[in-house]
């Protein structure tokens, strides 16, 4: 993968590739309705909506958000805390993402069909048989190199809507595809760079927190590298590319990676 810096005058050209991409508009249906009408801060606004759902009251939500923030900052490897932070803070932005998905034909299909990404549904063996350089093959290579599997994602607990819970789950499950697409490594600074990218795309508060507080844990050179190279790349590409939540990854496996990158408007990240 080669490194190319896109001069600004080409940004508009890139934008032409994805004319349907709107600025994300915050849509506050559930969030505002709940906030305006919660009978009290101590009562959960809904009943159990999906397996794994834990309805919590607004007060509990606040406490959990603060607690998980501190814990995740102290120890980013606590996946459950990171997940909890994302769910307690993400309500309004999940709605935004869901609405953007509704506007896109592919995203709408995803919402209707609700595909789940597990090692079974991904049929990893078949993917390993694909030619090198195809998206599917590189994805499996990435999984094997990092020794991770698509089954290790934390399930959703604290989102009070079944559809939004699916959106959150999908967001987590597609994380590995982002790595494959962008070429970012699974190092701390790589993850932070990816969080910047996601922040531009989705605006989720969790990504913002990681983006701003994450670098505090880096060494000086790592931080320098992050802000000199990764962050500008993330800003540019995050805004110019298609909303990746709308991508039905399962249908892109057989295409070469460069083609996928081109069609989605993402430049591969610079290698250092």
């Amino acid at each position, binding site marked *: 993968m080669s490194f190319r810096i896109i001069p600004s005058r080409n940004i508009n050209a890139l934008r032409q590739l994805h004319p349907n991409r709107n600025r994300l*508009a*915050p*849509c*506050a*249906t*559930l969030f*505002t*309705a*709940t906030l*305006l*009408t919660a*009978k009290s801060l101590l009562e959960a*606004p*809904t*009943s159990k*909506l999906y397996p794994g759902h834990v309805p919590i009251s607004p007060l509990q939500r606040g406490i959990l958000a603060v607690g998980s923030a501190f814990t995740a900052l102290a120890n980013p490897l606590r996946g459950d805390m990171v997940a909890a932070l994302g769910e307690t803070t993400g309500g*309004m932005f999940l709605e935004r993402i*869901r*609405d*953007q998905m*509704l*506007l896109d034909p592919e995203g*709408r299909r995803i919402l*209707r069909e609700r595909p789940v990404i597990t090692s079974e549904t991904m049929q990893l063996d078949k993917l390993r048989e694909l030619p090198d350089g195809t998206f599917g093959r590189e994805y499996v290579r990435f999984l094997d190199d990092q020794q991770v599997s698509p089954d290790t994602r934390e399930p959703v607990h604290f989102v*009070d*809507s*079944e*559809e939004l819970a699916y959106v959150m789950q999908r967001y987590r499950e597609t994380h590995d595809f982002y790595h494959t697409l962008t070429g970012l490594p699974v190092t701390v600074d790589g993850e932070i760079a990816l969080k910047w990218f996601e922040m531009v795309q989705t605006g989720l508060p969790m990504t913002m927190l990681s983006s701003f507080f994450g670098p505090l844990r880096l060494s000086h050179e790592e931080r320098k590298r992050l802000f000199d190279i990764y962050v500008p790349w993330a800003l540019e590409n995050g805004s110019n590319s298609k909303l990746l939540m709308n991508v039905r990854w399962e249908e892109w496996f057989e295409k070469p990676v460069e083609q996928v990158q081109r069609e989605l408007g993402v430049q591969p990240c610079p290698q250092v």
Partner: protein
Amino acid sequence: MSTRLLSHTTARARITLLANAKKHHNHRLVPALSCSRFLSTHATPDSSETEPYDVVIVGGGIAGSALACALASGKATGTQKIALIEAFDLSNHINWKPRADQYSNRVSSLTPKSVAFLKRIGVWSELDSSRIAACNGMQVWDGVSGARITFDAAHSNDRSTFLQQVFADAPQSPSSEQGSDQQSPLAWMTENLHVQYGLQKQMLAHKNRGVQLDIFEKTKVQGISANVSSSSPQESSSTDISEWPVITLDNGKKLQTRLLVGADGVNSPVRSFAKIESLGWDYSQFGLVATLEVDHSTSTALDQGKGVAWQRFLPTGPIAMLPLNNGYASLVWSTTPKIAQDLKKLPAQDFCALVNAAFHASPADLEYLCRNIGPDGQPQVDFQKEIEWRASVQELESHAVARQSKDAKPPKVTAVQENTRAPFPLRMRNSNSYVEDRVVLVGDAAHTVHPLAGQGLNQGLADVECLARVIEQSLLSGSDIGNIHSLTPYSSERFLPNLAMLGTVDKLSKLYNTDFGPVVWARSLGLTAVDNMGPIKTEIMRFAMGLEDVPSSAARR
């Protein structure tokens, strides 16, 4: 005209002549209008073609016709010589025979104040109560956040004498299912054509009893001019009305009038003649009207939502459903020009599905559907399936969230009446002044407003009522009704209230035209708060019903 003949006879002879001539007329009202001809504006015309009038009303729409009726029914104003000029064929109105299962697409809501006025001028009793629907409740909600405010006639404690007078007598009172203790509906919905019908009938009745009301229909105004007086003092034998405006019609006829009334709509030629500037802006929205058939059993409101007006504020503009009788409703949907044009072209079933989506689905869903209408007006996806899918998802969510299931839902639309879908541009205009020397503006010629609050027609009728009253007062004070000092009380009374209404409606339309998060949050909070504050809601209702004002100083003795 016989007035010219009469100019050569003596005063006494004139009275006798006319008294004899009028003997065979059937008077419903008391007066010997034997002096009516005598009272006509009696001048030696400038040229053989110019005919003098006291009042010429340009524009035979609802405002112009209502003014003609109001003047004709006044004790003093009814003795004047009045002309009404209208470009279209008014006999369409008088011969209006609608089918019971068809409603015209231009429907207006009439406030109690407007209805009281129509009663006073005798028009309300000419209307068919089966085609008037009482609106007893209003549900208005934010399409983005769901925050809602409801108005209910049952909770309005207004038992003021004004309202009692409005409802006391008329046997054809349309709100009469409940018997004697009726509360006032918030408004009445009826077709504009229906009101026009009543107005035309009443005008003819006035003509038949001898009021000098000349109606020039199917006639356009070709030009209006004013001659500046240049007659020398020695020329004192003939009357000099050269300062009066001269209206030239396209059939060559010329009228010269003491007072020229512009009721000729938003692009008023009378206003241009008077050099009154009109400022405002065009909204980047079109309003689409249509007549719908709805299924009340699908509504979760009280009494299946009969008599309830529904309005949802979408980011592209508000959509409103106004109740009519027998399962019909009128749609007013303010939206972008492109969507309005597409809506017109859609097949009927898809149009109904889209209207239902506009009331029930999320704005994102609606946007998706609107984007998927082809240039030929055909939907590019299956609207029905998409809507059903989204409705099923929302159903699950609404059962879970305690509050949302309590919100009443409007009835589902089952059909749209053919040829009733029509878009029109929306704009706001206000004239700098309503009066000039010998010229006055009423209705849309003076001000135009966004339809979201249903106030435009009511403002016009309030203008007409005030002007008729001011002209009557001027006559009783012996003033020249065209003198600017005689017209100033009208301007004082109407200018500020109209401006306030225009400003409020404009701000509301701008406030709800966005889906930007903080604004949505703030406005939802505000709306919910007001919904819970009884006294403030009552005040808003009274303002919207036209009950907030006190009689003007013109009426004070």
